[in-house]
C-alpha cells in the first residue's frame, strides 16, 4: 500500500475509492506507536475514536457519497480546542480531567470535511510559551533533534506533523504560536486574518489576538485545511460575516510582478541569528529570481510590538483565566472539599496548585496592567501602539503586496536553554507578534537550514484577508526552497515518500 505523505493526495485517493481511510489511519497510528514516547507530541491519542471516524468515512465512500475535501486525512488537534466528551486540558493541571460538553466550531468543520482526528496535542500551558516546555504534562521534543524544543505554544501540533504522526494539525496563534513552532520543526504554519476562523471552542488566552490556523507539510495542504475551517460562524461575534476568498485559489500563480517588502525592523531585530537572516535574504533573492520586485520597507512601530503584546495578552489572559476558580469544573483544591477553608482560601489554593509558573506570571502582569491608576499607562498605551502598527502596515501595503521577514530569531534551541530567562523566551516572538496585533495573516514556510542543520522558517505577511495572495507567494517560496530535512522517524516506514 502506498499512502501519500500529503493531505491533498490522501483525500483525493480516499474520495476516489483508491485508498481506505482506515488504512491511512493505521499507518499513522503505527508511527505514533513507534515514536510518540520519544516525542511526546500528544496529551491524548484517540485511537478508538479515530478508527470509528475513518470507518465512517470509508462507509460514505462505499455508499457512493463524498466525505469531503479532507476525506480520511488524519488531523492532530491542539489541546485547547474543545472536543465533546474528550478531555481538553490546555496542558494544565487545572483542566486535567475536564471534558467539554461541546465541540469547537473547527472540530465540527473538520468532521464535516471528512477529516479523522487522531489526538490532542501538547502545548505550553494555556498557550503561554514558545517551547512547549510550559506543559504540566512534560515537554514535547523536536523530531529533528530530540534534545531540542519544537517551539511553542503549538509545539505538539508542529512536532506531530514533522514526525509524521498526522499530515495536518491545528494550532492556535496569539503571538506566533503556530508560525514559530512551524519554523522550528520545518513545517508550514499559518495564522489567518483575525475573524477568518471561528474561535468558538478555542479556549481563550488573549481573545483579541487568538486565531486558529493550520500546520502542514506543504503550503497546499495548509491552504486546504484553512479553507475547510474558515468562514462565518454565528457563535463567534468577532468572526467575519462574509465567506473569505479561498486560500488555495492561486497556489500556482507565481510571483511575477508582485512587490515584496523585506521588513527592515524585523530582519534587524534584537537577537536575530545571522543564519536565519541569511536564509531570509536567500528567500528574498529566490522571489526576485522568480520575477518579484523585492525591496526593503520600514514598519517602524513593529519594534514596539513585543512590549505592547506583553501588556495586552496578559491583560486579557488575566480576565479569561479567572473562571478557573474551582467552583464549577476542573481541579479544586482540597481546601474547597474538606470544608476547612472559606471561599477565598479555596480560590487561592485552587489557582496556586492548578496553574504553572508562566501562567501565574502572566496573570499577575495582566492584573497589574489593568489596575486602577495603571490602565492608561499600560493597557491604554499598548492599544495605541497597536493602532500605530496598523497605520505603519497600511503605509507599507500601499507600496507592497506582501512583506517578508524571518519567522523566529534562530533555529530550535536546546531543551531548558531559555526557561530560566522569560525575557529571552519572549524575544522568540518578535517577528510574529506584529501580525497578531494588526489582525493580519502571516505564514511561515521552511527555507533551508541554519549552521546547525536545523530548519529555518521564513515568514510571509499579508494585509487583512490577503490569504489568497499570501499562500500564492508562500507556494512560490516553497518551490524555490532548498529541501527541508526530513526527521528519521517520518522518513522511516514511509513508502514512496516525496518531498
Amino acid at each position, binding site marked *: 500500500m502506498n499512502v501519500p505523505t500529503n493531505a491533498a493526495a490522501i483525500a483525493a485517493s480516499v474520495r476516489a475509492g483508491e485508498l481506505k481511510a482506515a488504512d491511512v489511519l493505521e499507518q499513522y497510528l503505527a508511527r505514533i506507536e513507534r515514536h510518540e514516547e520519544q516525542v511526546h507530541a500528544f496529551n491524548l491519542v484517540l485511537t478508538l475514536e479515530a478508527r470509528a471516524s475513518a470507518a465512517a468515512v470509508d462507509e460514505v465512500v462505499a455508499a457512493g457519497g463524498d466525505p469531503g475535501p479532507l476525506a480520511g486525512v488524519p488531523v492532530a488537534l491542539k489541546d485547547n480546542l474543545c472536543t465533546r466528551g474528550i478531555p481538553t486540558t490546555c496542558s494544565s493541571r487545572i483542566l486535567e480531567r475536564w471534558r*467539554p460538553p461541546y465541540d469547537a466550531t473547527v472540530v465540527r468543520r473538520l468532521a464535516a470535511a471528512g477529516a479523522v482526528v487522531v489526538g490532542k496535542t501538547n502545548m505550553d500551558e494555556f498557550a503561554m510559551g514558545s517551547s512547549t516546555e510550559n506543559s504540566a504534562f512534560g515537554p514535547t521534543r523536536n523530531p529533528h533533534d530530540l534534545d531540542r524544543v519544537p517551539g511553542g505554544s503549538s509545539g505538539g501540533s508542529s512536532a506531530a506533523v514533522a514526525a509524521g504522526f498526522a499530515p495536518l494539525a491545528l494550532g492556535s496563534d496569539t503571538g506566533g504560536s503556530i508560525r514559530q513552532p512551524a519554523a522550528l520543526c520545518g513545517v508550514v504554519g499559518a495564522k489567518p486574518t483575525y475573524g477568518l476562523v471561528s474561535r468558538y471552542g478555542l479556549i*481563550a488566552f488573549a481573545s483579541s489576538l487568538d486565531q486558529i490556523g493550520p500546520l502542514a507539510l506543504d503550503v497546499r495542504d495548509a491552504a486546504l485545511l484553512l479553507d475547510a475551517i474558515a468562514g462565518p460562524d454565528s457563535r463567534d*461575534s468577532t468572526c467575519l460575516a462574509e465567506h473569505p476568498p479561498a486560500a488555495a485559489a492561486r497556489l500556482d500563480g507565481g510571483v511575477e510582478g508582485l512587490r515584496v517588502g523585506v521588513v527592515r525592523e524585523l530582519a534587524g531585530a534584537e537577537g536575530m541569528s545571522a543564519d536565519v537572516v541569511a536564509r531570509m535574504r536567500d528567500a528574498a533573492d529566490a522571489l526576485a529570481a522568480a520575477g518579484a520586485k523585492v525591496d526593503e520597507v520600514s514598519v517602524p512601530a513593529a519594534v514596539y510590538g513585543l512590549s505592547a503584546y506583553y501588556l495586552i495578552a496578559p491583560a486579557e489572559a488575566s480576565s479569561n483565566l479567572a473562571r478557573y476558580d474551582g467552583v464549577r469544573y476542573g481541579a479544586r483544591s482540597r481546601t474547597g472539599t474538606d*470544608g476547612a477553608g472559606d*471561599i477565598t482560601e479555596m480560590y487561592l489554593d485552587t489557582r496556586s496548585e492548578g496553574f504553572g509558573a508562566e501562567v501565574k506570571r502572566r496573570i499577575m502582569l495582566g492584573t497589574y496592567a489593568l489596575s486602577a491608576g495603571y490602565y492608561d499607562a499600560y493597557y491604554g498605551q499598548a492599544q495605541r501602539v497597536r493602532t500605530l502598527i496598523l497605520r505603519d502596515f497600511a503605509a507599507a501595503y500601499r507600496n507592497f503586496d506582501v512583506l517578508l521577514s524571518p519567522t523566529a530569531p534562530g533555529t530550535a534551541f536546546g531543551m531548558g536553554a531559555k526557561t530560566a530567562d522569560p525575557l529571552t523566551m519572549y524575544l522568540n516572538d518578535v517577528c510574529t507578534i506584529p501580525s497578531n496585533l494588526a489582525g493580519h495573516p502571516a505564514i511561515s514556510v521552511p527555507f533551508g537550514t541554519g549552521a546547525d542543520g536545523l530548519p529555518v522558517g521564513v515568514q510571509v505577511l499579508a494585509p487583512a484577508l490577503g490569504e489568497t495572495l499570501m499562500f500564492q507567494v508562500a507556494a512560490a517560496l516553497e518551490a524555490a526552497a532548498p529541501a527541508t530535512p526530513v526527521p528519521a522517524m517520518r522518513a522511516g516506514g514511509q513508502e514512496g515518500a516525496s518531498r
Partner: protein
Amino acid sequence: MTTTTTEWETVIGLEVHCELRTATKMFCGCRNSFGEEPNTNVCPVCLGLPGSLPVLNRTAVEYAMRIGTALHCRVQPSLFHRKNYFYPDMPKDYQISQYDIPINADGWLDLPNGRRVGIVRAHMEEDTGKTTHVGGGGRIHDAAHSLVDYNRAGVPLVEIVSAPDLRSAEDARAYVDELRSILVATGASDGKMEEGSLRVDANVSVRPAGSPEFGTRCEIKNMNSLRSLGRAIEYEAARQIALITEGGTVSQETRHWDEAAGRTGSMRSKEEAYDYRYFPEPDLVPVEPSEEWIRSVQDSLPRLPADRRAALAGASGMTADSDAVITVVRLGLDDLVEAVVAAGGSAAAAAVAVRRVANEVASDPEAAAGLDRTAFARLVAMEAGGELTAAQARTVLKAMMDGGGDPDRIAADLGFEAMDASALEKVVDEVVAAHPAEWERFAAGEDKLTGFFIGHIKSATDGKADLKAASALLRSRR
C-alpha cells in the same frame, strides 16, 4: 451643649437594575425564565465554559433602546466592557457590562408631582447567578456550604442610574414606582420587585440645607420592596445626621440593609472596594444601532405613564397626581376609562370610572384582564346616570369580575332598580318616625347621627337607596 439646630437635607441617587423580559438570555439561546428547577436553563455560554463565546441578543438591545427612549435619553453607539471580580455566582468571574460608553445617556423622568429627576445613564449588562448560603449567618464567609443556581446567569439587565436629584424617601419611592410603570409600559420588563426583576440600590448622603456641596455618600444594598427602600433611606439619613451631629464623619462605603433589624450595616469600605479592572470586552463588537432602528423604536414606543395620567386627568377632571389616577395608570387599566369616554361618557362618568377602577378593579388585576370593556362602560353609565347607587354599582361590578355578564341583567337579577324620589322620601319619613329620640338630637345639630339614619335607610331599602340623596333628604327635614 450646643443649642443651634441644623436643618438637614437628604440627597439620594438610585441605581435600578431591571431584568429584561426577553425570551432568551443576553448572550445565548437559553430560556430567560424565573422560578424553574435550578441549573436547568444553562449552556456552555451562560456557564462560561472554557472556549465559549457570547453573542448579543438583538431583542435585549431593542428593549434597552426602548427604555432609553422612554427616559428621554440619547441612544448612542456603545461598547461592552468586562467588570472583573471573583464571586461564585458569576460563571466567568467577570461580568459583561457597559462602562464609559453606555447605550443610553443623559435623560430624565418626571415624577407625578412634577419634580424632574435626571437619568445619568441606562446601560446593558448581564445578570449573575443566585447563591444560597447554607449555615452560618447567611453570608458566604461563614456558610457551611453554598448552592449556586445559574438559571439567572446571563439574563439581560438594564441598569438605570439616576442623578442625585431625589431629596426624600418619599421621592425615592415615587421615582421607583414611576420608573417601574415606565418599564412595564415599554414592554421591556415585568417590573416585579418581589421576584427580583427590579432591584434598587440607593446612594444616600446628607448635607446642611442650602449647602451647595454634597456630603459623603453611602451605597445601600438589599432593599426588596418599596417599603424597605423608604425605611432604609430614612434610617441611613438619620444615622448619618446623628454621626455628624455627634462630631463624627461619614465614610464612603457600601452598606447592607437588614430588613428584620431595620438598620444598615457596613459591608465594605472604600479601601476594601473592588478594583474591577474594566477593559473593553474583546469577544463582542461595538453596538451601533442604525438611525432607522433608533427611529423605529421611537415610533413604536407606547404612550408613557405621565402622558396617560395627563389624558385621564383631562378626561375626568381629576388631577394627574391623584392617587386614583396614578393607580389606574400604574396597573395599566386606563383602557377601561377610555372605553367609558369612547362610549360618550361625560367627565363625571370618566371620574366614576377612574374611581371604580382604582378602588374595585385594581384589587383583582387578574379579573380586570377579563373584564369586558363595553360592559364596564355600560355599568359606569348606569351609575353616573343614577340608575344604580354607588353601592349597587360596586356589587354589580364584583359580579361582572367574578363571572362576567351584562350589567343590566345582573342589576335586574339582583332586583336593583333606581328607587324613585317619592319612594325614597317615604322610607326616610318612616325611619325618622321610628326613631324620634335620635331625630330630636339630629335635628338639634348632632351631625354624627347621619350615619345612624343612613344605616337604617340602607337596610330598609335592601341597599337600593341612593345614599347621597337620602342624606340630603335627612338634612332638608331638620
